[in-house]
């Protein structure tokens, strides 16, 4: 069936060519990280003659050019991301359910508000938001950072849940109600499991955003021991201004968990994306 013929080979070559813009930077990062200090003058395009993990080690141990060790930043990132995703799922799923099932004008308006928030850039509101967070005493705290992230990503999460739930037949919920389930139980036992694909999408999109975000973390927890990985990586830039091998090594470490997670959950995540598209 899938004989590897001339046409297949042609297409494969096409894919590789299309992938070059993606793969080249990755290649440069790898060669830079693996090159020892004695070979620093070589072209970045040349494969390192004597590969070494020294840069990785130094980035992990010596890091903390800013206020916090690199391993602490990793912990911060994990905690922040997990908390934000959990809050989003716990709040946005019921919110989307209510918006999808209530036909009132008010819920239409609320949904419109979320959709509007979706297209507003964070930079527009960052100054008043920062002022408010200072007044509330939440700047520089992990709780404050989590709150900002959750608020920032809530429109997307609510939007995704509402859209999916609008396409979900009400018969399942009605069957559960007739079976004797109370409203909370209908949601927890029937609706929430049925929107699992969206939960996967929400977790992926918002989790990646929080994990990779630099701006919000810098503004709200910069120069504290709550900084997340992107900010910690940035702190190397100041201290090792010329030490690209260390910066790249730190970036590699930061990307590691995401790559591993995606490797495991790839199938589920892709299923979530496609089933959302189909409603």
């Amino acid at each position: 069936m899938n004989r590897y013929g001339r046409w297949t080979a042609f297409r494969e070559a096409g894919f590789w060519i299309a992938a070059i813009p993606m793969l080249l930077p990755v290649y440069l990062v790898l060669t830079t990280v693996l090159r020892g200090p004695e070979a620093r003058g070589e072209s970045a395009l040349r494969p390192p003659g004597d590969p070494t993990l020294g840069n990785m080690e130094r980035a992990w141990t010596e890091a903390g050019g800013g206020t916090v060790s690199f391993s602490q930043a990793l912990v911060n990132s994990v905690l922040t991301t997990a908390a934000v995703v959990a809050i989003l799922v716990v709040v946005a799923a019921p919110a989307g359910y209510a918006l999808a099932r209530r036909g009132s004008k008010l819920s239409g308006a609320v949904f419109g508000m979320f959709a509007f928030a979706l297209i507003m850039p964070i930079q527009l509101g960052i100054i008043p938001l920062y002022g408010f967070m200072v007044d509330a005493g939440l700047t520089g705290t992990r709780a404050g950072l989590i709150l900002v992230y959750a608020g920032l990503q809530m429109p997307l999460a609510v939007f995704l849940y509402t859209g999916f739930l609008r396409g979900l037949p009400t018969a399942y919920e009605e069957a559960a109600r007739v079976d004797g389930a109370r409203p909370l139980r209908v949601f927890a036992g029937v609706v929430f499991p049925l929107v699992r694909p969206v939960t996967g999408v929400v977790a992926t999109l918002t989790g990646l955003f929080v994990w990779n975000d630099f701006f919000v973390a810098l503004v709200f927890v910069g120069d504290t021991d709550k900084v997340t990985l992107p900010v910690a990586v940035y702190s190397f830039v100041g201290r090792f201004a010329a030490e690209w091998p260390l910066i790249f090594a730190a970036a590699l470490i930061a990307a590691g968990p995401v790559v591993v997670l995606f490797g495991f959950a790839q199938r589920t995540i892709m299923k979530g994306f496609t089933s959302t598209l189909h409603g």
Partner: protein
Amino acid sequence: MTSIGLDHVVMRYDGTQAAVDDVSLEIEEGEFFVLVGPSGCGKSTLLRLLAGLERPSSGTVRMDGSDVTELTPRLRDVAMVFQNYAIYPHMTVGGNLGYGLKVRGVPKREAAARVREVADLLGLGDLLKRRPTTLSGGQLQRVAMGRAIARRPRAYLMDEPLSNLDAKLRVSMRAELEQLHRRLGVTTVYVTHDQVEAMTLGSRAAVLRAGELQQVAAPQELYARPANAFVAAFIGSPPMNFALATAREDGLDLAGFDLRLPAEHRPPVAAGERVLVGIRPEELRAPQAAGKDACALRVTCAVRQNLGADQLLFFPVPQLPYEAAVIARATFAEDRPAGPAVGSGERLLCARVPADVSVEPGDTVDLAVRPGALHYFAPDGGARLPSA
């Protein structure tokens, strides 16, 4: 065992025409009651009102004499089988069967035993661990039934449960449903648009049109003495023939046929007045099978459909356009899926005769109808008129 009552129930969705319009009904304990009507007649809404999924705009719903109008589905304790089954896709078959028991706090051990019992009853024993996505339509249908049965509810509400099955499976499931009802004896309200299901399943049936009750009676009564022209046209397949006739001293002038009728079978209108006459296709017989006092009709066969044991002969009779309009209005033809074909200036009537009568299109055929088989309806409104 539960009796169900509806008193003057009205259901109106935001100022539109009432989906259910002043319906009063008594459903007895253990009865198999069918709600039948064309799509959009309000039968599913009525069922949802019984389940508690909707609150009526006015009127009361009673169960065993007590008012349940304001009760949630949970407190009404009825089970519903949905048209598309609504089997929870994230649970196994066993999980689906036991869900109602679980949420109602039935002890685990007892719930497991009941699930097993129901699974055996319906032949689902080997499928308990399977996911619904791996089941066939017929199996899903059984799971939906099983979920209702396992609960041991006060009543079953079924919303077109067989309409997603193929024709053969539907016939066998119909028989199974009937057996099941006889065995369990639980009050069942069954919604269908299929008059065959209404005829075969119910001990009684209610015919609905545009949210209004047309007639509540045993299936045979609906067939033999329809309360109006709509019920007459809806019940029976192929549908009843209609023609506008003129009464005479000694009988009827029916679309050019001269029918002489004994006094007790004459229409209850004065000579010269118009009356809507209905004749079931199976009552248009070969003369030798129709009896002595039958009225003869000589017709020309236009179309012949062979059904195996029987054949349908369609023959044209003259009809003025205004007559067609009167008939369509009196039988609410726009509410029914397929009215009889109406050509310009003529109307095709249908006779159902045994297949051994050899007829070809174009042949002249002699038919006969018993005077007692004529149904009379008022041309204006379609109400049944008793024979004089």
